[in-house]
């Protein structure tokens, strides 16, 4: 991660909890210390509270290393996200506080548009028209176009310098398979960064994955890091 410079744009996979989140890579990025990062992610850090007494009812209540850690370490200056804040205003995230103090930029993007913009970035698409956001604040300043009688707005692709993703298993070519609902943004982020780094539970030899079940072909993956501790989230 030494080549992650100040000012880099980082895609970071996340959705609803620790599943599919590259938590060990985020710890490494915190230790590495690059500043002024732009984070492209579904959520900009979780709410940072410890598991509630007893059994947590949702995965989002679980504590795990996430972007909040980078925010608290003063490394984040901008976010592009669909869940930028805590679900509860009484427990604001570190990023939310930073943003409300005017110390960070924020672009809120509908989740499907975020996914499609990332996919477009990886697929060499220069932009696309979507109906999502028409008539809302998401459409302000964007090109509108009526296509077959429906109104659409123009959305641009997203790319990043680095994508930090998580998969269940990689082979040494970088082919990846995921684990149930922890797939989410990982496969598309893998395609849309100059350097994709994946954190996996296990690395196998080529042939060790079912070729029909490989979701991310290794062409999209530059570096593979095996998780160091079992059971850690």
């Amino acid at each position, binding site marked *: 991660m030494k080549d992650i410079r100040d000012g880099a744009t980082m895609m970071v996979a996340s*959705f*609803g*909890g*620790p*599943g*599919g989140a590259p938590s060990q890579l985020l710890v490494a990025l915190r230790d590495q210390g690059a500043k002024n990062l732009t984070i492209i992610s*579904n*959520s900009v850090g979780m709410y940072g509270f410890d598991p509630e007494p007893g*059994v947590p*009812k*949702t*995965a*989002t*209540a*679980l504590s795990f290393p996430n972007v909040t850690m980078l925010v608290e370490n003063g490394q984040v200056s901008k976010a592009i996200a*669909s*869940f*930028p*804040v805590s*679900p509860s*205003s009484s427990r604001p995230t570190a990023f*939310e506080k930073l*943003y*409300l103090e005017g110390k960070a930029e*924020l672009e*809120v*993007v*509908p*989740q*499907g*548009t*975020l*996914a*499609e913009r*990332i*996919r477009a970035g990886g697929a060499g698409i220069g932009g696309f028209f*979507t*109906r*999502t*956001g*028409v*008539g*809302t*604040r*998401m459409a302000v300043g964007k090109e509108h176009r009526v296509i077959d009688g429906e109104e659409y707005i123009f959305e641009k692709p997203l790319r990043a310098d680095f994508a930090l993703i998580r998969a269940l298993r990689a082979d040494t070519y970088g082919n990846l398979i*995921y*684990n*149930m*609902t*922890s*797939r*989410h*943004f*990982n*496969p*598309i982020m893998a395609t849309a960064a100059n350097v994709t780094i994946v954190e996996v539970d296990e690395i196998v030899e080529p042939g060790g994955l079912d070729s029909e079940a490989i*979701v991310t072909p290794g062409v999209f993956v530059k570096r593979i890091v095996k998780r160091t501790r079992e059971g850690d*989230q």
Partner: protein
Amino acid sequence: MKARLERTTMALRVAKEFQDGDIVNLGIGIPTLASDFVPEGRTVLFHTENGAIGFGPLASDPAEYDINLINAGGQFITLMPGISFFDSALSFAIVRGGHLDVAVLGGLQVSERGDLANWLNPRRGVGNVGGGMDIAVGAKRLIVVMEHTTKEGEPKILRECTYELTAKECVDLIVTDLAVIDVTKDGLVLKEIAPGYTVEEVQAVTEPKLIVATDIREIEL
């Protein structure tokens, strides 16, 4: 006798709308509860934005909680034969491409024309838009389930939404703790009403003028 409907009752009423074979997306909150009340004899498969169709009920035993098997609200779900997993791009291709038969979302405000505001409370200033805008635009049929009024007793069904919109003219049906209301080209049609309430009482907490259905009845469960 005269009590607003409970959240689970609202969810039960919503679930009656599900037809056999429907692919349904449920938003966080009351919508999620509807998954427990699919009418007997109907097979409904649920879609979740993070990337699955056909999951089972919420996990009831903490021992089976798996961080890799959750719905879009972060709740732990369970496997069911025939479940499929996919990434966010395909998940929203399903949503945006018009492949969801029904979506159920919560609401802060709904307008007379079916505009929905459900993501940003202006008092807070920032909010999580999530997948709501995509779902509101993409679902073939959108049901909004919410309390009929705010905690302060103000109408949430308005001539015009005053909060930031999620999508325009997207809502097909509104289910509240007082009424079931169809959004039609002619306006809002009051179809069903909570036991013990009168049309006038519902109208009193609804800003736009309601059209009373000729076959108006008690909310059917």
